């Protein structure tokens, strides 16, 4: 263990999108264990029920009992009001003694992976996909950075949950690859612009989630579909917990190059 590795993430305001399921949910739980009492988690998703049950689970946890505040924001990030409601909720719960702002841009969708690029003749479908997967993470991040500007004593960390698909094209995955490539560049620009900001493009690996279920059952390209279903059948998927632990390690060590693409298998 590096001598400069922190034991915790400080007294933090942590915003996690797509927190209702999968990697986002696990991130909320792992974060709750690493932030100091007096910290706040702002959990964002569309499903009120799932968020509330996570909130209840966290309230019962050690962290919850030690004074972790959990706020749920039920929002559709692809609508103007979505990012706005997240920012106002965050401002409500912010207090001056917090020393770390963490934004986890995790919410994403696969898009219709059963189809190929030449089938995407519907402008509304493509626009809608980009709105949720690209625009909303730009606007949310920009709004959070504006709401919580740089000041001495305040660390700010922005995480983009990325993918190998940001770097490599995959047949029948045009929307997802395009969205991930767009986001990765977006956060690289942010890292270049703001040297005091810590920006991490974290690729969590093939996770055992609802998203993977869709990937292995609906992918249009037969060989890619087989690759995904073989991974599942052969037990080669990662649990969200296993990947999340690596993400937490990266954050605690805090030595990653801002803007870099870091893959779970790099660690």
């Amino acid at each position, binding site marked *: 263990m590096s001598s400069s590795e922190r034991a915790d993430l400080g007294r933090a305001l942590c915003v996690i999108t797509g927190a209702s399921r999968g990697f986002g949910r696990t991130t909320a739980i792992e974060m709750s264990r690493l932030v100091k009492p007096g910290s706040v988690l702002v959990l964002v998703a569309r499903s009120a029920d799932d968020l509330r049950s996570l909130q209840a689970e966290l309230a019962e946890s050690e962290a919850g009992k030690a004074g972790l505040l959990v706020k749920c924001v039920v929002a559709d990030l692809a609508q103007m009001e979505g990012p706005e409601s997240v920012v106002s909720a965050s401002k409500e719960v912010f207090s001056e003694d917090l020393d770390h702002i963490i934004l986890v841009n995790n919410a994403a969708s696969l898009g219709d992976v059963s189809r190929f690029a030449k089938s995407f003749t519907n402008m509304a479908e493509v626009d809608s996909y*980009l709105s949720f997967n690209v625009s909303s993470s730009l606007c949310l991040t920009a709004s959070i950075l504006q709401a919580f500007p740089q000041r001495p004593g305040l660390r700010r960390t922005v995480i983009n949950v990325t993918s190998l698909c940001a770097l490599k094209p995959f047949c*029948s995955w045009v929307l997802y*690859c395009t969205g991930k490539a767009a986001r990765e560049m*977006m956060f690289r*620009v*942010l890292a270049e*612009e703001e040297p005091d900001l810590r920006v991490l493009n974290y690729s969590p690996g093939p996770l055992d989630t609802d998203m993977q279920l869709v990937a292995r059952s609906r992918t249009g390209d037969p060989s890619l579909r087989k690759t995904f279903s073989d991974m599942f059948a052969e037990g080669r998927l990662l649990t969200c917990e296993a990947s999340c632990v690596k993400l937490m390690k990266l954050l605690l060590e805090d030595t990653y190059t801002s803007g870099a693409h870091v893959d779970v298998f790099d660690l």
Partner: protein
Amino acid sequence: MSDIHSKNPRTLGRGICIITGASKGFGHALAHEVSHLLKAGSILLLVARSESLLQELKQELQSFTEEQQLVVRCIAVDLSTREGAHETVMVAKQEAVNEMDHVLLINNAGSLGDISQFASFTDLDKVNSYLSLNVSSALVLTAGMLQAFPCRPDLRWSIVNVSSVFALQALPSWVLYCTAKAARKMMFNVLAEEEPNVKVLSYSPGPMDTEMQKDIQRLTGTKNNLFPCQESAAKLMKLLLDNEFPSGTHVDFFTV
């Protein structure tokens, strides 16, 4: 007999060529270059928002194109609307009554967007509007054309994505432009993977003497050493004529 199978054809064949953003700058120069390389009976579709600028361009090409038996059509549409892409595809289908041996689609239309600090981009509608023109419309138009002119053995299919060094390199204050160019590069890479019978080329045209460069200068104070659009357009033509590039590759002006 068509010479599309020849390693180095001196023409782009009897084709239908669609150029978006044809009214100015690089698109305008491309129209001139391409018109010299299309064989008799070819069709050149010029797409942009400005009817008057397109007609002016058509006039410029007229004397030459009449002689060449090249049909030139102007399509004044806003590609960021579904009607825009749809109409362009409809006109292409209507015009191509005779069998073509080449479909050449040049996705050139694009905009700079606001050059501004990352934290300023809080307006979802503005960002969506930018991505709609610069990313969505290229996919939708390309998909529409691929459906209108399905691949067949004697049909050469070429798609150009007018890219930028900023599809690869992150530049502070340029989040919209970099993001869209990176998105397009990946989008066309996926297309290249999926369509082995289509040659896809991402071409970064270099810093040219266009209105976009004037905007860049005005907004950022940077003065680049600029090249004439014609020079870059000619390099793109060489790449297409040689037709040796691997599909999906990203080529920069400075390496041609």
